[in-house]
């Protein structure tokens, strides 16, 4: 069986995710060839890459061979080539080499692997601090990566482990970090917990909002204490950045410490998190270790 997947050219996050959800494997037979048709793509954002990677991975896991065609835009082609996107689903491709050239602005696409988290974080930190932010600390980015990785591992129940990529946009002085999984979704996870406690199910946007409240936990694991998503939010706001989350029927944007949520008429079975960090607000790298004893 051959399937041609022609991508749509849009920067509208909701429209893009609706498109991705409509192309999920559900009900499609195993095996065959999936061709990703890039004809209309003129620009591709990190949130598009990670969600597309999740979709492709879903087919790949079902035994489909992956091909790419009609990449008409030289810029898009060169970019995708530089992050090894075209080779990612080749059988002999090593996903844990974290390839990134010094001149690049994107730190490589990566499928989350719990045994390689430290290596990835070290490589990402080193890449950005060495090539783009000498003398400054990318700690807020590292916190965002850690918290979203752990959130997926602990709560997502995802058939496709998350994909992430981080990209620096020098003209806008921002880093965009996107991460996507095809799990049960944050709102669903909150409502599953409520059902277990005989609490009524709440709308997805309210459930998503609840998940970001400090101290709220679904106790998916014994160690969960409800600090992770709040820590993510704090790290972003510390740089004057913003956060957008699309999950189930909910959409949330956090910016300048204000939350805006709404619900859509369609459901995304997964979670997309899109972070923007203002790099002009990154702190000077602190190397001054205090030898004093610290008590609390």
């Amino acid at each position, binding site marked *: 069986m051959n399937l041609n997947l022609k991508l749509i050219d849009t920067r509208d996050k909701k429209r893009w995710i609706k498109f991705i959800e409509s192309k999920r494997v559900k009900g499609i037979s195993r095996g065959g060839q999936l061709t990703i048709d890039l004809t209309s793509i003129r620009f591709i954002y990190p949130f598009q890459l990670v969600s597309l990677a999740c979709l492709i991975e879903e087919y790949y896991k079902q035994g489909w061979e992956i091909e790419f065609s009609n990449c008409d835009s030289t810029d898009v082609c060169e970019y995708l080539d530089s992050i090894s996107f075209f080779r990612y689903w080749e059988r002999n491709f090593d996903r844990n080499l974290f390839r990134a050239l010094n001149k690049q602005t994107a730190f490589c696409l990566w499928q989350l692997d*719990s045994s390689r988290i*430290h290596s990835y974080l070290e490589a990402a930190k080193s890449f950005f601090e060495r090539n783009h932010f000498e003398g400054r600390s990318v700690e807020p980015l590292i916190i965002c990566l*850690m918290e979203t990785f752990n959130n997926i591992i602990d709560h997502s129940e995802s058939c496709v482990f998350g994909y992430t990529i981080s990209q620096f946009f020098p003209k806008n002085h921002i880093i965009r970090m996107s991460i996507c999984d095809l799990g049960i979704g944050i709102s669903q996870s909150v409502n599953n917990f409520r059902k277990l406690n005989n609490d009524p199910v709440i709308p997805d946007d309210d459930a998503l909002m609840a998940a970001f409240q400090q101290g709220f936990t679904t106790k998916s694991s014994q160690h969960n204490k409800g600090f992770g998503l709040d820590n993510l939010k704090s790290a972003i706001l510390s740089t004057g950045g913003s956060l957008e989350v699309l999950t189930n029927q909910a959409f949330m944007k956090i910016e300048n410490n204000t939350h805006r949520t709404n619900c859509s008429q369609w459901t995304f079975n997964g979670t997309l998190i899109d972070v923007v960090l203002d790099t002009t607000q990154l702190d000077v790298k602190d190397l001054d270790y205090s030898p004093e004893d610290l008590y609390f």
Partner: protein
Amino acid sequence: MMTVNLKLLDLVEGTATNVDGITLFTEINKHLERGNIVRISLKGCGAFSSSFLNSSFGSLFDKYGITDVKTKVIFTDYLKSHERMLRDYYKIFAKFHSN
């Protein structure tokens, strides 16, 4: 009672995961059970994830109580960012899990 000096990065690969947090908890717990004080050097450490903190210090707070841990676990060779993160964590933990 003696003071045991530990270097965090000699014990764990990083400070991102639960696995590392559990490793740290196990090591500190061993010394606290013997009635010792533990001094931990944070030299070379990066940021802490909430999962790491929950599985290490959070678990110690659950077992010994936050007041007891405050007097028996000391930090050294730390950056301002470490101090801020740990102070915040102790404060938030006390707020939601006071004992």
